[in-house]
């Protein structure tokens, strides 16, 4: 899937750029984008090192266990396959919690660890995503954030009279999209189980 998407992105962009677009900026894009990726990685390395260290303390200190226990009733409904995988439940619970609180940088390493746990109990063939992996990503992408801090900061910076006016609507909107995402995942997971 990703092979096809990535390939068509490149082919379409280059062909379009050559015939209808701007060849100069096309050439620029190769250089700019690849160095942007590396500088993003360097930023990421610092923040991620810190959060992965803190999360290790959280795991050993039992914070993640508490969080997972609290969210378990909901989580096992969405992820029936990991009922007995405590580690996966812990990481997923912590990832959702970090996302809800707007700690995106803390959420990513937790999410990656959750994926690794999900991989261990994936009984499909190599390279095929399990129902739990699909659900985890779809819900992640539906955006669970309560207070969109960065957007509020931008609104403030660009002269909004009431930068926080979007909090209410944003909660409603991301609530709706998250509920739809969860329903979709339940339907898809249920369909697979019936077969």
């Amino acid at each position, binding site marked *: 899937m990703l092979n096809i998407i990535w390939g068509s*992105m490149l082919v379409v962009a280059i062909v379009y750029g050559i015939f209808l677009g701007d060849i100069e900026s096309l050439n620029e894009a190769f250089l700019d984008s690849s160095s942007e990726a590396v500088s993003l990685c360097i930023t990421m390395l610092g923040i991620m090192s810190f959060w992965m260290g803190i999360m*290790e303390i959280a795991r050993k200190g039992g914070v993640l266990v508490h969080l997972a226990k609290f969210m378990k009733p909901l989580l096992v409904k969405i992820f029936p396959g990991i009922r007995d995988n405590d580690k996966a439940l812990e990481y997923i619970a912590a990832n959702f919690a970090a996302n809800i609180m707007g700690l995106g940088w803390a959420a990513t390493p937790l999410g990656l660890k959750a994926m*690794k746990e999900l991989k261990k109990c994936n009984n499909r063939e190599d390279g095929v995503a399990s129902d739990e992996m699909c659900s985890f990503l779809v819900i992640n992408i539906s955006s669970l954030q309560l207070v969109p801090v960065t957007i509020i900061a931008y609104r403030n910076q660009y*002269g909004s009279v009431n930068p*926080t006016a979007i909090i209410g609507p944003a909660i409603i909107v991301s609530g709706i999209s998250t509920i*739809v995402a969860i329903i979709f995942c339940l339907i898809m997971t249920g369909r697979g189980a019936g077969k």
Partner: protein
Amino acid sequence: MSVFQYISGYIMPLMILYIVVSGIVHKVKIYDEFVSGAKEALGVVRNICPVLVGLLVATGLLRKSGFLEMLVSLVAPLFEYIGFPEEVLPLIVIKMFSSSAATGLLVDLYKEFGTDSYIGMMSSICLASSETIFYTMTIYYSYVGISKTRWTLPGALLSTLTGTVAAWLVCGM
């Protein structure tokens, strides 16, 4: 400084404080654990780096070649017809690929229409309640070596579409 910005400034420090204190209470060797956890980050980022280069170059090419603009202008009349503000459309499409590019566009819209205008509000809400689909999918799936993503993309697109329609309706109220 609004109350929410004020409160959210405390979230991260308090989280860290809570985790560290509960580590001390449970007699965890906190610094040793911190270092052993932090060590893993290098491996994670080393895995992510080539993936990010591939994705950002592909996204950058799509944008810089003018293809995305063309795509948006192609479907814009349809959206105009149903009353959806076409100015917000590029934002939603680009947010699927790259968060930084979307933020750049958001700032442009703020400057052009004002942060508190209908378009300013709607684009704020759209960005606040959506995620970068392709970025998230590539990073997470390539980390565990998954190439067949099954119904992840349809699900993600459905939730983004729902969010967009919801934002549109909420702003219209």
